[in-house]
């Protein structure tokens, strides 16, 4: 009974510790977004600015995803394990926030956080930011698992992941028919759904490229690169195929009508679903085919 109670106590203490770390994040958020200092450090009013609420809590969701990949090994002593947990948690959150900052700087290079979220309450911006937060957290989690408690490998893989994600977000303009900048200014929700599908799909594909056994870091990095390029080759095939299988009627032939219909939520959902299903099928083609080796025969 005493042992069970002790374990329960450890769990409760750890939950409290995680809450403390998330509390500390409130201050870290201010470092990246100084203009939001008043809102974040005092009580938040979700009804006042839903876009800001979504933006802030997307980070909290991301941090929670990252925490879920850190293990606490109590056998080496509670305080030592807690120290390990805190160190890795702090490093992970710092790297996560930096990567989020970099990726958002790439995607939103024409937009400013203060203008879009605080002044215009742009839900489209907040939703895309939410997608980034979740997808990058998921990718960071994968990288952390692969790093196996080695900070050097974590740094190498993190940088590598960042480069691949940075390139992949630019891929959106190539494969989507929606104009990112124009629709963002219009706060168009069609863009939200389309981009959400794209970012979720890209996240799944990149995570599947990183998720493989590794014994040698050089060979691992090469394999990830090859799988990423292979995914870039396979994905358009599925996208084209799905468009052919489910052709959509857009407008009645006039350029203006086509543009208007593409801005409807329905078209955004259609594109988003195409991206996600194409990406899932791509991961299957890239990762689930076993070609075997010549060695069983020789």
């Amino acid at each position, binding site marked *: 009974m005493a042992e069970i109670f002790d374990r329960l106590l450890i769990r409760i203490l750890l939950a409290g510790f995680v809450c403390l770390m998330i509390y500390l994040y409130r201050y870290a958020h201010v470092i990246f977004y100084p203009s939001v200092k008043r809102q974040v450090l005092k009580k938040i009013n979700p009804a006042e600015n839903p876009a800001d609420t979504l933006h802030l809590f997307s980070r909290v969701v991301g941090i929670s995803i990252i925490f879920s990949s850190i293990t606490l090994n109590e056998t080496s002593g509670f305080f030592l394990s807690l120290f390990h947990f805190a160190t890795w948690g702090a490093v992970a959150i710092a790297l996560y926030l930096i990567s989020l900052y970099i990726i958002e700087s790439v995607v939103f290079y024409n937009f400013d956080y203060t203008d879009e979220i605080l002044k215009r309450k742009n839900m489209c911006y907040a939703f895309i930011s939410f997608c980034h937060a979740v997808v990058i957290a998921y990718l960071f989690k994968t990288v952390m698992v692969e790093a196996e408690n080695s900070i050097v490998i974590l740094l190498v893989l993190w940088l590598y992941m960042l480069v691949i994600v940075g390139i992949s977000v630019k891929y959106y303009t190539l494969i989507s028919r929606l104009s990112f900048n124009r629709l963002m200014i219009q706060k168009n929700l069609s863009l939200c759904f389309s981009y959400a599908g794209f970012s979720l799909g890209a996240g799944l594909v990149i995570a599947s490229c990183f998720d493989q056994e590794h014994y040698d870091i050089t060979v691992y990095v090469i394999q990830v*690169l*090859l799988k990423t*390029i292979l995914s870039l080759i396979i994905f358009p095939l599925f996208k084209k195929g799905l468009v052919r299988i489910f052709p959509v009627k857009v407008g009645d032939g006039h350029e203006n009508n086509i543009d208007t219909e593409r801005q409807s939520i329905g078209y955004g959902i259609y594109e988003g679903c195409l991206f996600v299903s194409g990406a899932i099928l791509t991961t299957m083609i890239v990762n689930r085919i076993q070609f075997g080796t010549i060695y069983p025969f020789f």
Partner: protein
Amino acid sequence: MYKFFLYCMLVILYLGLAKTLSPSELGVHYLQNEKGFAKLSDKENSSFILIDTHVTGFLIKTYYQKYRVISDYENIEDLIVRTSKEFARRNMENIGLSLFRRADGREEFNPLPPGSLYIGDLEYGYWKKNRDGKMEWRFNKSFKNLPNYLGWGEFRPDEEFYKEMKLRTNAGQPYYGPNNEFGTKGKVTRAAFPHFFREDRMKKVELKTLLIEYLKENF
């Protein structure tokens, strides 16, 4: 058009990188034909014995061959090479034969029974009369394990064998032994390399049988 060009570039980039960087592409030499043997080993007195062959791929086939390379004094290693379709097909009947020999700067390419490089060379062995009164080749004590590596089993070449082998060498023709003991259909080879002649590798399975077995196994 721009997107198509970009896609083609991506495919070329992938193929190029995969060829250059992929671990599965490293360490396996390519053997176009018999002329390529010389590049695989620079050792004197070396003999390449074909011991296995394998084809992989669905639409585009890749051919592999496994050689036992015996060089200098009992230096033995197994070597896997990728090879051309033409060369692989040409040597399908030559399992267990020596396809390349180099001695004293001279190179021979006609398929001969394994060990033909050493037979008659008094540095490696001697002729001894057997019970039937025929002269039989025996290796010196220091090379007593060579017959095992060569896959001879109980077979011991006699003078007739040696003379015929020399004749075929001069004519550049293959030789499978006096009673076709060597090669894919040869008894001696079949006994020496049972791995290649394993029943499950030899049998050609019909689609119907394969399907029935699959259904039995999985459902």
